[in-house]
């Protein structure tokens, strides 16, 4: 009786501890949001969102060109990083059971942990020295940073799919490539979306490689071969500046950046929620079958 009680209490305490962990992790998130909103909100008005960045003490300074620049950088970067990353992940997971596949996976892991400033230097020596400081060199650096993140999460997502599912699919006469795509699109999708989001969220806030590549610009610029502005650069440069108006703009830009990144997450989550449920249902039926057969 006593031991039963003790076990019950232990169970309860462990549950509370686990819940406590969740709450502890949420404290920084909430605190960051409060800090950024309370410092950044006063800076934000219509002009701030639509005007270009101007120098200290100039009225009507904004971050419109930086918002546009960030969108272009991340967009072009995704065009490079997502397909290369996803296909690398597919290869490593589905065909990578050989020395080349293991090498590819291995160096992807290494690249994922690499300081982005060095990748910025790589993009500098490869592209900037030819094209000059430009949108495309920044996008190239961001794309490279995305590749291993996307590849690893793709691989992880495919790894979560039980082998029996693949075998069953092949047994039913579905070609392997179609099985793979099918599996990615249904069962592995939540993992893929997570990977793409993680990658986009990560590069949207990258500062160091952009200093060496996209360079920043106070003017409106969208050309692929021209230097462009970016939100993290505005935050970084203005936060370090002596002038109160620029510092306020840094917090305003931080609020915009974090809002963009977070709302992107929310939107994608809302769009994919229905599919998540379907995917989970599929997974569950397979789990049931597995446990029946096993």
């Amino acid at each position, binding site marked *: 009786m006593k031991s039963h009680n003790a076990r019950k209490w232990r169970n309860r305490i462990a549950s509370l501890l686990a819940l406590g962990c969740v709450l502890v992790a949420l404290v920084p998130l909430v605190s960051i949001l409060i800090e950024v909103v309370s410092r950044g909100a006063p800076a934000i008005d219509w002009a701030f969102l639509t005007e270009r960045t101007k120098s200290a003490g100039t009225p009507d300074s904004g971050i419109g060109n930086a918002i546009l620049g960030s969108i272009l950088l991340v967009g072009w970067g995704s065009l490079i990083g997502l397909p290369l990353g996803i296909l690398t992940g597919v290869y490593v997971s589905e065909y990578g059971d050989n020395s080349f596949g293991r090498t590819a996976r291995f160096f992807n892991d290494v690249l994922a942990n690499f300081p982005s400033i060095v990748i910025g230097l790589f993009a500098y020596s490869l592209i900037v020295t030819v094209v000059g400081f430009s949108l495309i060199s920044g996008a190239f650096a961001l794309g490279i940073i995305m590749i291993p993140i996307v590849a690893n999460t793709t691989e992880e997502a495919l790894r979560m799919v039980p082998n029996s599912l693949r075998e069953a699919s092949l047994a039913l006469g579905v070609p392997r490539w179609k099985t793979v795509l099918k599996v990615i699109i249904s069962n592995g999708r939540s993992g893929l979306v997570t990977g793409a989001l993680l990658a986009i969220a990560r590069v949207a806030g990258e500062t160091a490689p952009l*200093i060496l590549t996209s360079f920043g610009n*106070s003017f409106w610029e969208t050309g692929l071969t021209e230097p462009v502005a970016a939100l993290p650069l505005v935050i970084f440069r203005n936060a370090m500046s002596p002038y109160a108006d620029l510092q306020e703009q840094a917090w305003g830009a931080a609020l915009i950046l974090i809002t963009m990144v977070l709302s992107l997450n929310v939107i994608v989550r809302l769009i994919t929620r229905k599919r998540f449920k379907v995917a989970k249902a599929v997974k569950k039926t397979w789990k049931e079958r597995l446990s029946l057969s096993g």
Partner: protein
Amino acid sequence: MNEVEKDTSQEGKRSIVMPHKGGNRMMYVVVAIAVVAIIIVAAFATGILSTGSKESVTLTGAGATFPMPLILKWADEYYNTTDGGVKVNYGGGGSGAGITQIEEMQVDFAGTDAPLSAADSSTYGLVHIPETLGAVVVAFNLPDVSGLKLDGDTTAKIFMKNITTWNDPAIAELNPGVSLPDESIATVVRSDSSGTTFVFTGYLAIVSSEFDELYGQGKTVAWPDGTLAQSGNSGVAQAVQGTSYSVGYIELAYALENDISFAQMENHDGEFVTASLETTAAAAAAAVPILPAGDGDWSGVHVLDAPGVDSYPIVTFTYILIYKELYNEDTKMNKTAAEALLDFLWWAVHDDGQAFASPLQYAPLPDAVVELNEETLRSITYEGEPLID
């Protein structure tokens, strides 16, 4: 996209058997995307897609972050003055980066706080154009003390950790009547390599031979153990403000804009001088006689411990570097851009541009330096032809 959704919803019921039609197209899309992505990356990597057309003239500069607010201000005003005809884009990044990038001809001009070595300026044919002045102050945080006086030797000893408490006789002697606490001094320095450190350590090396021997002048130096290092002026200022009984060095502009208290420094003539735009300009005026021509050797130039009763002792020029001959087979600069660059610099170093210095806490250039810059700009050529009469 619809097809994908349909497939998925069907899968719930029909498990793994799926319609084959949509699948083939999907495959070719995948292959096409892969090929296109590789081609894009390869094309940019090899520089094939490197054509760009420019309607207005864009001048790109990089380098020192210290003059960046002023250069950006000039960029704004010059853009308005030329009705949008000339865009000056200055990206900061640090003096070292700026020098590397102008030597690699990635930028049209570079900003630097420390002059080039004689070898570098002659090898690359770069000229120095001092465009504004800055000063470095010793910020302090003493809860019950409002004013503090320091001399060079004492300051050096504090940062070398030879003087470790506030009530040390050396400090007390300089501050009669001030009750200094019996607390240890926390010293805060810049962690990132910076022109500010270069100027400050240059001053300490001039006034203290011991500092010169042990640490020397540098953009970063090996400070003694126990020194707190922070990135940027803002980092040092915050650390000083957040730590009682601390001292640190920051730019004058930063201290003035953020109401940070800083020490009066004893100058070369033995006067205690408060750093301000006036005392900064006074120091620069005193340094004018030693300045070389724009294309000469600037490596020894400094405005530290300058003579004159009103001269603040920790002052520096900050320079713009451009090529003496703007035409080069490797640069993409055409004659229009070269003319625009010179016009912009001419405008910036004269009253038109210098008028914007004071509101941003930069000291305007003394007249003699403006005249020197005029000569330098007149000597700049494009394919051998001077561009300014």
